[in-house]
């Protein structure tokens, strides 16, 4: 390949900076738009383990049954488990019922499947308000739910960690399990967002 020699000689940081300058000068990339894209991917991509669990449940009805019956065991089937004594309970969001997770005491969180909790999850304001005014807090976070949707707030503890099985978005019938995985966000599995088709 004719470019490999150049690529090897010049540090990638410099080539990246050079390419960004050239693309910006030609109006092909706006650095401010790009910054937003990067921030968006950094916060919304993953966590992968939970997303795999959800995508499997969406495509495998028997797995979904096992997941809702015994979350810890079904999650372990995929090779994900945390320290002993951690019990993960999975609840399903539907057209008429919506679950949202909080830990009012501290910041209990199903980290083997969701990774580290986002900063707002540990915020005392979220923890206090989502219990009293879930519909309003969700709306403030960008999730407007119809008045006839019943909201249940699930309080995590050291014994029970809740995981939300979000609704599979419409128009994704043709997607495979692997293609569904990247759509599932952490926020959807905490219950403060829905999953979107793209």
């Amino acid at each position, binding site marked *: 390949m004719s470019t490999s020699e*150049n690529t090897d000689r010049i540090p*990638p940081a*410099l*080539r*990246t900076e050079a390419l960004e300058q*050239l693309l910006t000068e030609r109006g092909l990339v706006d650095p401010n*738009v790009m910054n937003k*894209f*990067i921030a968006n991917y950094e916060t919304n991509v993953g966590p992968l383990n939970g997303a795999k669990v959800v995508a499997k449940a969406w495509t495998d009805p028997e797995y979904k049954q096992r997941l809702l019956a015994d979350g810890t065991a079904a999650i372990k089937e995929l090779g994900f488990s945390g320290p002993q004594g951690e019990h993960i309970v999975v609840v399903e969001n539907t057209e008429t019922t919506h679950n949202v997770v909080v830990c009012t005491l501290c910041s209990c969180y199903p980290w083997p499947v*969701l990774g580290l909790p986002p900063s707002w999850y540990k915020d005392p304001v979220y923890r206090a308000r989502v219990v009293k005014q879930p519909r309003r807090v969700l709306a403030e976070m960008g999730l407007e739910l119809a008045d006839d949707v019943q909201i249940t707030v699930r309080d995590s503890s050291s014994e029970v960690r809740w995981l939300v099985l979000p609704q599979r978005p419409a128009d994704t019938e043709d997607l495979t399990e692997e293609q569904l995985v990247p759509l599932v966000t952490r926020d959807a599995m905490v219950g403060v967002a829905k999953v979107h088709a793209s």
Partner: protein
Amino acid sequence: MTAPLDVDGPTAPPRANGELVFAEPWQSRAFGMAVTLYDSGAFTWPQFQAALVARIAAWEAAPPTGECWNYYQHWLGALEDVLAGDGTVAADEISRRAAALAQRPAGHDHPHPHGEPHDHPHHHPH
């Protein structure tokens, strides 16, 4: 429009439980350029992915001696290949610009004149 990033195999970006991991700032810039250009329709995702697969396959077939695996080096190479392929940016343009950037004096990002005494460290993040 979110880029359908691979989650498994050599073409999947490095992650920690699914969240993207950038070891150095340039990696997130290289990532950002590709997803921004994809979003604006500069190329399709399969086009970029094919270039990435080719770059990784070429490296794996003959890993340069002493060179560690660096995912975003291949990502950047794939982006360059796609942009060179349709004539958007030629590889030697990038090389020339990078060489010019390499000639910048140390502390090039400082707004004050050089030679003046100052006591803050020269470690500005880019």
